[in-house]
């Protein structure tokens, strides 16, 4: 039986290296059967969006992601877990969030990464605002009811 992972969680302004973060989870070990990496990217919305400004609650964000990660680790016996969430201005095409998970079996890795993304969407204290092509400040991104439904299916 392998020890359950202590998750690595970072909230940062700078970009991250998804490949290096993911690869680090398997370095020096051969007990992992499934390694999954999910990256959320800033879409340009058909060429209308220049960037997203991501506001966050700095004192709470890491603590809340840690709670979400703890919930995932209580459900699935992950062998490694890294979550990185950026804030600040992220240009179209840029990386916003990384969830990388390692597990013995693929089902655990898929479920945990999917769960984590659903819960980060609805629980992590980040708010996105659009900066439009041409320089205008767009609207705050509306929460999607689909995101609440996605999170609710894990209950």
């Amino acid at each position, binding site marked *: 039986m392998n020890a359950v992972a202590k998750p690595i969680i970072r909230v940062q302004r700078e970009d991250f290296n998804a490949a290096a973060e993911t690869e680090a989870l398997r370095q020096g070990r051969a007990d992992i059967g499934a390694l999954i990496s999910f990256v*959320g990217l800033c879409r340009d919305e058909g060429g209308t969006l220049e960037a997203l400004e*991501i*506001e*966050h*609650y700095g*004192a*709470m964000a890491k*603590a*809340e992601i840690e*709670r979400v990660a703890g919930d995932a680790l209580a459900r699935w016996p992950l062998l490694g877990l890294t979550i990185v*969430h950026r804030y600040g201005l992220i240009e179209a095409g840029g990386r*916003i*969030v990384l969830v990388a998970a390692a597990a013995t079996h693929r089902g655990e890795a898929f479920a945990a990464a999917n769960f984590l*993304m659903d819960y*980060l*969407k*609805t*629980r*992590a*204290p*980040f*708010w*996105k*605002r659009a900066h439009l092509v041409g320089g205008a400040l767009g609207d*705050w*991104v*509306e*929460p999607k009811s689909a*995101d609440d439904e996605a999170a609710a299916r894990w209950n």
Partner: protein
Amino acid sequence: MKALYFAWLRERVGKSEEEIAPPAGVATVGDLIAWLSAKDETYAHAFEKKSVIRAAIDHAHVSHDAKIAGAREIAFFPPMTGG
């Protein structure tokens, strides 16, 4: 205690944080929202859609029923759109 505001709630209130001193009868998060809304038109407008306002006490999500006694930091914000 300190009150924090984020995203469009911050913009409507016109500040990101402030010290507040609610009177003894203000027991829950919901009471605090009502008390803030009664201060002036700015707060009334910011908090008008009560059902969408989320709150956190000392960096953890709470419902509008949560007691505020002992809270050092109460944050108000719209539904989150991270991830």
